[in-house]
């Protein structure tokens, strides 16, 4: 199973004075089971890109293929596609509307035509997956805290049992702990249910920590598409297009410059710690003191 964009171009308000080429000739494949990150400056086309993945917008040119089938050909069941490819929008809590949490999460499954028991089961599962406490199922979504609302909204999409879960900046506005909790849940889902995850984020640190592949968008084009280590090795280029590398990359490069023999591709705190410890260890072995090296 896979999602594929073939030569996709998208233009907002074509033919008017406000014409805006948001995407140009995008070729990308999202195979099943990957945890992919998308980064890019504001207005680089990330949101436009992910809306193509479940057929919310129709490419001006090019094709979108799900399992090899063109989703825009006559008679393709788009609504079914949307249950395979779940899309969580930025600030998803703004879409909650029902009188209680559980009914709101049931909205998706209900639209899929499931029986009410089945809906309820799916909803409970999904809420469980995002770590939402059972006691609060009957509460109104409007009286929850920001982090809780966010979870309910994500559960609303999860309940449709998607194979692909696409999230557009799911942690904006949350406190650091809330941020980590949501992302950790995603990893868990990815591991236990084998869901493919596409994560749009502005935080290089989060991206470095969680994803196995990064797509870098720049002015509607794909600038890089590779593993985090390889992408962040281009940190100078990333800066030119309004992005940055994770802080660790900068530390590693600074240390290297000062003569410490560290692995510059370390991007997370753990990796950095290990390589620094290893470097210090070998310095000690060689009988030199750190100060002499630097």
């Amino acid at each position, binding site marked *: 199973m896979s999602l594929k964009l073939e030569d996709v171009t998208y233009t907002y308000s074509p033919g008017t004075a*406000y014409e805006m080429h948001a995407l140009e000739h995008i070729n990308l494949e999202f195979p099943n089971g990957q945890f992919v990150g998308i980064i890019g400056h504001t207005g680089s086309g990330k949101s436009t890109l992910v809306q193509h993945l479940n057929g*919310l917008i129709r490419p001006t040119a090019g094709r979108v293929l799900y399992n090899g089938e063109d989703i825009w050909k006559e008679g393709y069941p788009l*609504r079914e596609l*949307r249950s395979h490819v779940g899309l969580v*929008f930025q600030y998803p809590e*703004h879409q909650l*509307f029902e009188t209680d949490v559980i009914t709101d999460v049931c*909205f*998706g499954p209900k639209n899929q035509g499931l029986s009410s028991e089945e809906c309820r089961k799916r909803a409970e599962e999904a809420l469980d997956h995002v770590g939402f406490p059972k006691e609060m199922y009957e509460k109104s979504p409007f009286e929850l805290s920001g982090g809780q609302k966010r979870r309910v909204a994500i559960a609303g999409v999860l309940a*449709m049992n998607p194979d692909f879960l696409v999230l557009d900046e799911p942690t904006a506005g949350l406190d650091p702990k809330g941020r980590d909790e949501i992302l950790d849940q995603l990893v868990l889902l990815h591991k236990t249910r084998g869901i493919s995850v596409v994560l749009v984020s502005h935080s290089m640190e989060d991206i470095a920590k969680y994803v196995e592949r990064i797509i870098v968008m720049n002015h509607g084009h794909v600038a890089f598409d590779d593993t985090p280590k390889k992408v962040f090795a281009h940190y100078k280029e990333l800066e030119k297009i309004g992005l940055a590398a994770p802080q660790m990359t900068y530390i590693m490069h600074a240390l290297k410059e000062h003569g410490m023999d560290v692995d510059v591709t370390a991007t997370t705190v753990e990796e950095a710690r290990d390589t620094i410890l290893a470097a210090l260890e070998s310095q000690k072995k060689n009988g030199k003191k750190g100060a002499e090296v630097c």
Partner: protein
Amino acid sequence: MLRDITLGQYYPADSILHRLDPRVKFVGTIVYVISLFLFHNWGYLLGTVFLAVMIKLSKVPFKFITKGLKSIFVLLAITMVFNILFTPGEVLVRIWKITITREGVAMACRMSVRLIFLMIGSSLMTLTTTPNQLTDALESLLGPLKKIHVPVHEISMMMSIALRFIPILLEETDKIMKAQMARGADFESGNIIQRVKNMVPLLVPLFISAFRRANDLALAMEARCYHGGEGRTQMKPLRYQTRDYAAYGVLMAYLVCSIGLRVCGL
């Protein structure tokens, strides 16, 4: 499409009409509309000349001005047909039961021309005045109503807030709609009752979000010491320039001519 929406149909250009005080343009439009109803026959010539000069002065391409005319085509057709068919008078042609009268034809032409001129005249105002200038003009012109306790300042404040938030809410509507579609919602099919029901997942979040925004906005306004119209100064007070007085003069002359023609029965 949504983010870049320019409300209304303002056409940016640097012309005398653009630079005129919005109040003058507002009054001018009203004068012009009145004159259209005064005209009988020859008056229309005056109206045409006046309009042509204004179009020329506005520097707005003619096709922008006539763009709006398409949407009144149906109305225009109806006006023509019914006036021709149902106005009694001297019979010109009679086909079976349908009669066409001289008065009918004259009436139809007069009505159509009037309608078209009215459209073009008011277009000219909206093309050369931004919605905000229009709001300012309304506030200033309706100022005397304050005496009878009409909250003119408040209403104009509400209007500029509305203008500011329309694009934001349009974008929000689009977003919520897409978010619900991603959850399988369907806004396109079903009978009308069904469709109204299907709107609930869109409208509830939209209303809540709008009220939240209003709440934030009220706080922001208070934090910036807003407390109604009293004691407030203006950054861009409307002040008449020489050209505005001149324009009033021209309008006056035009109105007098129109009335003159009417009185003379021309």
